């Protein structure tokens, strides 16, 4: 006789196992993801890879024809690693966002699947995978099926030039930030395609809005990126980070008043490019039903959401790399890194720990920004299409130009006046600390006035 399916509350043992496994997953998944990246990616850097070809394969890397093939295979593994990173981090962010939103909205959020509902993202992903992949009869079937892959490609390609740590990057392109700008545009191609091919009026609205929005906001974000590029004198993401320091007053955001402005312009533009509130016009639920993804279901629908949450990491990581010092550990300079690595073909063991530390610094800064983006989403209303265009062309674009021109003059001044950047950095840092102090004071005051919060968090 088959066992009856029971809806009863799980037994204490089952609950303990669930709790232990999900807590283990909370710890293990990020460590494993970042650990694999730290272990693998430094090995495919040009220097280390050439040493590997020379010493392990006994060939001359510059003349041996197989170098390209071996390098290609290594990159394939890196690609799989990065895609896994994007998928899993996207999933975890979906859980994280829902928990944060729950607390903001004075409720608990998902808490059924695993401890703290941690496995909710797995459950949701599995559910979506098993759903019917519906293609509307009137839709342009080929384009409709293809559109999500453009979006995913745009997101994943970005990770190639995006740093994770001092040597933890797939390829330190000399046009890195320019490359990131370029491949991000693939996302809008996918959104436009899905809007058009769905043959639904709401989807078309969403697609058109998205095209207008993303293309417009690429202008101010491109201009804002020019500021750190001018300050560092390079387009390479690693180069820009190397030009900054570990302490907050050594970051680009503080070293130049115009960079402070440019940081906010970039941050706002990236919110718009990633379709996050207050710029979630393309998928505005209360206006366009679900915007460009109205007609999608199942796996393809899941892809759009995967990209939305993986984008959280990407936009935050770009802002951190360009303005907030990236992976720089306070007090560790470029010479220190060379010294730590040692002269051998393979770096010293202690060097790996420093790499892990740099990844930790980078991830912490990025997570702070991710939290701010989530926080904004659950706080702000949505702006209107014309207001969105106004903000872009009347304020952000002129602001971006002004920041760029000011940076040009500033760099000339820096070359002539000693310690100008240090003074600016310290002043802006002190101002920032003061603003933070005011913020926390105001928050404490607000919390003392709040009457309504009565969430029972015992059942977290």
């Amino acid at each position, binding site marked *: 006789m088959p066992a009856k399916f029971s809806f009863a509350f799980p037994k204490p043992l089952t609950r303990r196992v669930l709790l232990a496994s999900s807590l283990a997953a909370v710890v293990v998944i990020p460590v494993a993801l970042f650990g694999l990246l730290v272990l693998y990616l430094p090995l495919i850097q040009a220097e280390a890879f050439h040493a590997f070809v020379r010493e392990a394969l006994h060939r001359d890397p510059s003349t041996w024809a197989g170098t390209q093939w071996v390098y290609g295979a290594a990159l394939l593994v890196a690609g799989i690693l990065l895609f896994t990173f994007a998928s899993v981090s996207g999933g975890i962010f979906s859980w994280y966002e829902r928990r944060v*939103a729950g607390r903001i909205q004075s409720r608990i959020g998902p808490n059924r699947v695993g401890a703290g509902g941690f496995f909710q993202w797995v459950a949701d992903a599995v559910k979506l995978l098993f759903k019917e992949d519906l293609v509307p009869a009137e839709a342009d079937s080929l384009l409709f099926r293809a559109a999500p892959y453009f979006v995913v490609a745009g997101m994943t390609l970005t990770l190639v030039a995006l740093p994770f740590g001092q040597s933890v990057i797939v390829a330190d392109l000399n046009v890195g930030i320019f490359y990131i700008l370029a491949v991000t545009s693939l996302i809008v191609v996918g959104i436009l395609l899905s809007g058009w091919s769905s043959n639904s009026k709401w989807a078309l609205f969403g697609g058109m809005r998205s095209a207008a929005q993303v293309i417009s906001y690429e202008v101010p974000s491109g201009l804002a990126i020019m500021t750190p590029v001018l300050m560092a004198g390079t387009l390479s993401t690693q180069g820009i980070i190397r030009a900054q320091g570990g302490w907050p007053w050594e970051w680009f955001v503080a070293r130049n008043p115009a960079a402070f402005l440019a940081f906010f312009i970039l941050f706002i533009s990236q919110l718009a490019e990633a379709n996050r509130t207050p710029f979630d016009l393309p998928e505005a639920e209360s206006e366009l039903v679900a915007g460009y993804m109205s007609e999608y279901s199942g796996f393809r629908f899941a892809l759009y959401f995967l990209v939305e949450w993986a984008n959280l990491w990407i936009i935050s990581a770009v802002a951190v790399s360009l303005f907030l010092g990236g992976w720089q550990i306070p007090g560790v300079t470029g010479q220190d890194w060379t010294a730590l690595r040692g002269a051998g073909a393979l770096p010293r063991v202690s060097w790996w720990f420093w790499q892990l530390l740099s990844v930790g610094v980078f991830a912490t800064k990025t997570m702070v920004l991710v939290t701010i983006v989530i926080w904004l989403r659950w706080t702000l*209303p949505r702006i209107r*299409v014309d207001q969105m265009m106004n903000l872009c062309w009347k304020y952000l674009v002129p602001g971006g130009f002004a920041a760029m021109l000011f940076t040009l003059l500033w760099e000339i001044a820096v070359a002539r006046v000693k310690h100008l950047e240090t003074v600016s950095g310290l002043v802006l840092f002190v101002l920032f600390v003061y603003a933070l102090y005011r913020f926390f004071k105001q928050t404490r005051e607000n919390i003392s006035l709040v009457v309504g919060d009565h969430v029972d968090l015992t059942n977290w």
Partner: protein
Amino acid sequence: MSKLVLRRIDRNNEEMLVNFGPQHPSTHGVLNFLVETDGEVMRRAIPDIGYLHRSLEKIGEIVGYPGYMPYTDRIDYLAAMFANEGYAIAVEKLIKVLVPPRAQYLRAVSCELNRIASHLVSIGTMATDIGAVTPLVYALREREAINDLVEALCGARLTYNYHRIGGVAFDAPAGWRDGVLKFLDRFDSLLQEWDRLITWNEIYLKRLGGVAVISREQAIDYGLVGPNLRGSGVDWDVRRDVPYGAYPDFKFDVPVGRGWAGTVGDAFDRYYVRVLEMAQSSRIVRQALEKLPEGEYMAKVPRKIKPEASEVMSRVESARGEMAYYVVSDGTERAYRVRARTGSFLAMGIIEDISGGLMIADLIALIASLDVVAPETDR
């Protein structure tokens, strides 16, 4: 019906015709708008009603006078107390019954609590429609507290069926008064929190200020009622100007649109009038509970209600504005005609006129600010 509407649309131009609803997330129920748009800008939005028609007025002619009371709940499921009260007052006029003072006060308390609950849903969904999801959860949380109180009073949380011809169904249970006062203490500070949460948010002001302006004259011409009328700057409230029930005993202000976000009669005025009205409702409930008289809560009403042939009309100030019942009796146990005049139906009428030149996002602000509830439009 839809064919009638479609015939009015010129199909030979470049504009796109979009069906806004009846399954659209921001139509709050089953409303349909046929929207002619040129890109994001609408030429007009034609409301197409009838998706929730349940012959509520016709039922009034089929069931007896007391039996119709539960059906009135369904006319406005967010503010069922007022629909109850309006019908009860009409029939009381018809059979010439005087309602005892305690029942009058309990009616006022239950109605004002219901007004708060209804306005909370209205302003919460308005914030959600503008894109801020969080305030709705806060509003619904407070509404749950009111629902608990009303449940303690009459056993129902949505369709109350609390008012009866000649009084109310139940007396307030022991300790209920303290529970309401405790809730109101918290609620008054919640209103301040609400202002910080969303009302004076810059984006919110920009989205609602100067949008979908209804002038004073237009509001009167279209017969708008309640907060929609007051939002346009017309100082008119049935509770104060044509008092009924216990309302002459209470002191309260009638908030009127002042153009807080720029223009008098814009979507923000209609929204903020509702927020201020909640504070006034809280004031009324406090006064009523303070002076709550002892005594009967139900008048002596004959078991069989068989009024003489006549016609009466009653008016109450519902959460959606003036609600009027017109009841005609032909001397039998059943009404010859029951007619309910509701605010949402009138508010739907103005949408076509106002919507020309607005953007699609503004149409949502307009519908939300008019606080249209679907069953009120189709009876």
